[in-house]
């Protein structure tokens, strides 16, 4: 294709996006669009799968049968989200095995929040309330993103996430209204998860490298700082309502702006965790790699069996 022809296609493509048309797998798309989407969708899928680990850590120790069942179902939903997102990503011409390979070798990233440990039951409440809460704010705009398979996967994901968020908040309500030990456990969890949750909305706009292009392709509708503000404005009253204190002495309602002012985020910590030096980066990745390696003989067996069955059918047909 000549340069002029490509330019022409690109123009038509950008116009389609501007008209809010969905781009489908078989449509022509610029290579950069494909690559950016593979990166973002797979990062999202990996986050779902790695995100199963910190919460999975409490399934066997959940304090009641009702909580155990709810947590199992929640972690299972995340596996389901991983499944649709990997499938959406595969429509861009990359296999699930290649995507796993990128995760296992550290080439692909996942959300850094999952590199923090879950050390008490209240962490399960805090993750649902704050982490899923922040995730929803990030994800709702993606329900109308330009790439069809991603947008459709996100509609389903968001429905379930908002259920998880309520479930997490409900755990926190119960703890906050419980015994002094339970209340302390809830406050401690909020103290530890608050700042990492704010970091989940990404680096400040000044540092964010992908924002402009992502806005154009509707992979993003608001900037990281706008999303972070929205998260804070929404979450602080929820903490107040159950008598927990957000661990930020500078947090204050600003009448003039109509938003909360908040303290400085420790970006050194953010970059430390992103670069692989958080409290659980090694454990999370090695848990994924182990599951994959230890499962290899099982996957091989399934393939070999399927082939034998296929061969038998063929023989019969002949």
């Amino acid at each position, binding site marked *: 294709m000549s340069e002029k022809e490509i330019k022409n296609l690109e123009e038509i493509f950008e116009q389609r996006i501007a008209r809010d048309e969905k781009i489908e797998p078989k449509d022509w798309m610029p290579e950069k669009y494909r690559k950016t989407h593979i990166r973002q969708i797979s990062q999202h899928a990996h986050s779902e799968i790695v995100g199963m680990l910190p919460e999975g850590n409490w399934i066997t120790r959940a304090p009641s049968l009702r909580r155990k069942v709810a947590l199992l179902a929640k972690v299972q939903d995340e596996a389901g989200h991983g499944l649709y997102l990997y499938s959406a990503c595969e429509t861009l011409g990359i296999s699930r095995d290649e995507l796993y390979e990128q995760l296992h070798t550290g080439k692909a990233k996942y959300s850094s929040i999952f590199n923090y440990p879950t050390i008490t039951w209240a962490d399960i409440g805090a993750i649902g309330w704050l982490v899923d809460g922040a995730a929803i704010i990030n994800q709702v705009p993606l329900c109308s993103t330009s790439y069809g398979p991603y947008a459709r996967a996100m509609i389903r994901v968001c429905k379930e996430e908002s259920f998880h968020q309520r479930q997490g908040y409900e755990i926190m309500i119960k703890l906050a209204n419980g015994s002094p030990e339970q209340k302390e456990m809830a406050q401690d969890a909020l103290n530890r998860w608050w700042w990492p949750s704010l970091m989940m909305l990404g680096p400040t706009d000044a540092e964010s490298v992908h924002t402009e292009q992502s806005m154009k392709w509707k992979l993003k509708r608001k900037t990281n700082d706008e999303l972070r503000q929205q998260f804070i404005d929404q979450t602080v009253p929820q903490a107040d309502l159950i008598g927990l204190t957000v661990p930020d002495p500078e947090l204050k309602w600003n009448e003039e702006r109509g938003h909360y002012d908040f303290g400085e985020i420790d970006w050194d910590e953010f970059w430390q965790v992103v670069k692989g030096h958080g409290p659980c980066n090694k454990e999370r990745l090695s*848990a994924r790699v182990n599951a994959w390696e230890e499962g290899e003989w099982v996957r091989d067996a399934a393939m070999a069996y399927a082939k034998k069955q296929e061969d038998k059918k063929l023989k019969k047909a002949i």
Partner: protein
Amino acid sequence: MMKNENLVHYIYGIADNALILGQRLSELCGHGPSLETDIALTNMALDLLGQTRSYYQYAAALLGDGKTEDDIAYLRIERQYKNVLLVEQPNKHFGYVIARQFFYDVFHLLLLQELQNSKDETLSAIAKKGIKEVSYHQRFSSDWIKRLGDGTEESRKKVQEAIDDLWKFTDELFHMTEDDKLVFEAQIGVDVTALKQTYYQRVKEILDEATLSIPEIKWFQKGGKQGIHSEHMGYLLADLQYMQRAYPNMKW
């Protein structure tokens, strides 16, 4: 004559199997060999724990002393759990997970198919609902027995090892405790001894199809139904009960 207490113990006998197997399966959530198997194993854990809750809620109502499903699940001592030894065996590798599941599922389905005819309406209703779930479990585990048995050399070796190791726990499924006998006589419980022949026949069919062999073992293990468990059980309960023991008398 059957007393209330006998019926409660009978219910524990069935429900504890579901609880302990559900707990074992839930250890695997997030660590399965593929996303699809991870989701399927978690589904089975959810079914089993759902059944556990129905049984314990009924047992709590029969006890009528203010105990809840959670008191029953979390606050008994090891000797009071009546599950069979099979279900508490650890997740040594996927072959063990599947073999344990298969051995239990075949029994479980036969049990529920009888229990649905119980004179006790609650147990009959729980059984009817469970049959749908457990039919799927049996299909899943049987299919995997076939895949692993007739898959690769390695998978055959691994699943055969699990079958050989776990076979000795299958006989206990057909033991009747004193409670079981009384509850059966009251036409509420199931005579599990009558299920034995069909059980081994079904197991043999699937193992044959999977090109696996039946272990030549004459000695079987028992004890779970009397609350005499393997050394694995204490650790499983330590995990299960941790929160309730560390923070007694709280609502979650």
